[in-house]
């Protein structure tokens, strides 16, 4: 029998970026907030010995314990879905800060085009640019409407960057801190892309170029370029993370409490309102019900969708009929890229997660697609994230993958190899979706989320086109050997690709085609907010966290408004 606790104003399920932002804003506004975090407490002091590729990058010390919970996966509906037993394609977070602790810090605003992609594509290329199998739709909000929230997130994060991207949306203020240092490796890319007629600029970074105090009074340190960002926490507090910004902001109000080892298994619903959540204390096994005026689902894309599914909130998407909205429009990304082998040695082991230069000339609708067999594109970057020796064993084409020749080549090329890489956009397809698995359960007896996903022709065409462009850039950079990425075939959940999973709880202007409105308020329950990259109706050609942060600020405003006035916010 579950113990029922005292009612609070707001409960957040998960305390990463979205939960932290909502907690900070609501607690500042005087609301009593409880954050339920299934993982443990952690902060900068836990990362002193983090320069450990084996423990953190290979054995995923900061990430989700898959023995407790994972997902199942299949490429298409006729395949038997099986559990993702080991971490691979994407890296799920756990613990205070969530994936916001071990991210790289590349913090973008999606393009104005992204938010109105359906209308703008139809207008420019006609209604049949993509087949009806692609479920393209506008997001129910425009870039201009979202701009103040982008601005707020960037100020909270102290983002470092330069306003030189000719394709970016209009900014109400400059980046809070200057761009990071332009290294010799980045300059190579800058020169080559400029010569090819593109417009390179420093990538917007949450690894800060200088010490900064944000509007909430939280301090973020200056990056030391130590080369341990992705998969690691920052021992300096120089990579903006929830646990050094929004979480302490929420805590110092006195209105916020985080409960650790608290794994939410159900959202409780009565009529057209939610009443709270049920969670299990993973240390004692005890069940609790936390009643709340407002429930905010602020865990990862997959868990947010799963909780709605197991709680029976909303209509599950059905790919046969294309009816239902929950689980619809799951999207991922494709990563066109080219490896170049050089003669000279470079300081590849130095770097930071978002130290890089980018061109946006081939992203969004920044170039003409009239004669192309795909829409959208991707941001093309040279990043210097700090390559580490276990994971980085570059070998030229036709070199054996083990033995004497492998050893020589991988050691020689370790300091002589660069990659031009792309964050390629991903369009929703009717056969790519999330649902509940009928067979496999998590450690608490709750069904696993089932992912049905494959790359589509749109992905393959986009990948092929942009791979050729990255190859041209690498040639211009003067690489001795240029090795373009192989064409993509079927999505494979084994190799790491990107943790940029999106969709499933998408936002929109109508309950007919979306799960939440543009305040991330659930269409079926006014006091339920679902926040994260699950809200994206498609995935753009950038890292998602900037847009996730903006949406979280939007949701926080919505929750505060709802708490005052009730009802639907749109």
């Amino acid at each position, binding site marked *: 029998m579950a113990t029922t606790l005292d009612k609070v104003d707001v409960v957040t399920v998960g305390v990463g970026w979205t939960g932290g932002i909502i907690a900070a804003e609501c607690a500042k506004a005087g609301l009593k907030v409880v954050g339920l975090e299934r993982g443990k407490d952690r902060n900068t002091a836990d990362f002193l*010995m983090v*320069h450990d590729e084996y423990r953190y990058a290979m*054995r995923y010390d900061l990430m989700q314990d898959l023995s407790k919970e994972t997902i199942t996966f*299949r490429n298409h509906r006729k395949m038997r879905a099986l*559990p993702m*037993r080991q971490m691979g394609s994407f890296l799920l977070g756990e613990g205070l800060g969530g994936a916001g602790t071990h991210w790289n810090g590349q913090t973008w605003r999606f393009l104005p085009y992204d938010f109105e992609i359906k209308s703008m594509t139809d207008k420019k290329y006609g209604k049949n640019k993509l087949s009806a199998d692609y479920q393209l739709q506008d997001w129910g909000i425009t870039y201009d409407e979202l701009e103040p929230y982008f601005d707020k997130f960037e100020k909270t994060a102290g983002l470092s960057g330069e306003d030189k991207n000719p394709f970016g949306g209009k900014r109400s203020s400059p980046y809070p801190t200057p761009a990071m240092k332009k290294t010799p490796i980045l300059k190579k890319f800058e020169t080559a892309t400029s010569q090819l007629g593109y417009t390179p600029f420093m990538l917007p970074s949450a690894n800060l170029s200088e010490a900064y105090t944000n509007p909430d009074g939280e301090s973020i340190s200056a990056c030391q370029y130590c080369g341990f960002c992705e998969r690691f926490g920052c021992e300096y507090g120089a990579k903006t993370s929830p646990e050094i910004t929004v979480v302490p902001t929420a805590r110092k109000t006195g209105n916020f409490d985080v409960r650790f080892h608290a794994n939410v298994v159900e959202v409780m619903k009565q009529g057209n309102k939610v009443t709270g959540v049920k969670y299990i204390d993973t240390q004692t096994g005890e069940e609790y019900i936390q009643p709340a005026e407002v429930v905010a689902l602020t865990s990862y894309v997959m868990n947010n969708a799963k909780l709605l599914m197991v709680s029976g909130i909303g209509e599950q998407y059905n790919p046969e009929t294309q009816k239902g909205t929950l689980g619809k429009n799951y999207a991922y990304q494709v990563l066109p890229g080219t490896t170049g082998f050089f003669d000279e*040695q470079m300081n590849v082991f130095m770097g930071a997660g978002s130290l890089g230069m980018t061109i946006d000339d081939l992203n969004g609708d920044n170039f003409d697609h009239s004669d192309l067999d795909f829409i959208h594109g991707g941001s093309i970057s040279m990043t210097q994230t700090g390559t580490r020796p276990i994971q980085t064993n570059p070998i030229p084409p036709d070199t054996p993958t083990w033995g004497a020749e492998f050893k020589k080549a991988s050691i020689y090329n370790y300091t002589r190899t660069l990659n031009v890489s792309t964050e390629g956009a991903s369009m929703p397809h009717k056969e790519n979706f999330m649902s509940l698995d009928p067979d496999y359960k998590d450690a608490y007896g709750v069904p696993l989320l089932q992912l049905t996903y494959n790359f589509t022709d749109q992905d393959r065409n986009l990948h092929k086109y942009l791979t050729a462009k990255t190859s041209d850039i690498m040639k211009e950079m003067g690489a001795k050997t240029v090795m373009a990425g192989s064409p993509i075939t079927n999505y494979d959940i*084994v190799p790491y690709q990107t943790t940029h999973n999106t969709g499933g709880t998408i936002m929109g202007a109508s309950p007919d085609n979306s799960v939440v409105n543009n305040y991330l308020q659930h269409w079926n329950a006014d006091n339920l907010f679902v926040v994260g990259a699950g809200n994206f109706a498609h995935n753009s050609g950038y890292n998602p966290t900037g847009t996730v942060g903006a949406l979280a600020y939007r949701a926080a405003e919505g929750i505060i408004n709802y708490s005052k006035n009730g009802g639907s916010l749109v």
Partner: protein
Amino acid sequence: MAVDKKGLSRRDFLKTTGIATGALVGGGLIGGLVGYNVQKEGQVAGTGGHNGVGGEPAAVNNRGLMFFTNMAEFNVLAQAVERIFPEDDLGPGAIGLGVPYFIDNQLAGNYGSNVKEYMQGPFFAGESTQGYQSRLTRGEIFRQGMVRMDEEAKIRFEKNFVDLEGQQMDEIITAFQKNEVDMKGVSSEFFFKLLRQATLEGAYADPIYNGNVNMDAWRMKEFPGNQMTYIAEIENEKFVKYEPKSLSSMEH
């Protein structure tokens, strides 16, 4: 065939266990077999910070097996990983770097028991895009793999794996890589990937994990290990060389 000659001499060394034990001070037979290069270098992992370990000659060999109980299996592992990452003019191979001990030690812990992996049934083979679907733990897969490699050696060459020529060992490893060997509950291709990956992990992990002895693999690759900051050098046009540092050099 310089590499093969070296391989051969190592095998001769393995056969002549009298010399191996005789050459050691305080080390056991196991240390003699695989830790030979460790002893020769006169140093184990760590470069200071810990009393009595960093920088001290390894007068006492405190390496031992935590997972394998059968020396023949451990010796197959040692020779197999050396073929994957061999000693050459650049520096030590997997044996010299302590990789067999690294793998043994890891198999005895969370890694070998798949503590952070979803291991609930039912189990089905699945498509390659769906990844690891075995009910076996990594520890069980490695043990089976060693036994199967030795069996393949006997089938193909009527010898123990460790008595084969380098090329013959490579033929067997390649057969595993190409999924031509039958294993129970797991494909030989998957086992090969695991073995190759663990070899690289053991070679290049921080020496605190008992591989990458003397940080020699980092030296070969010119990776500086645990440096706290590069802010002063990040804009340097020239390649910067560092004496590598292990996490064991940190104050605890």
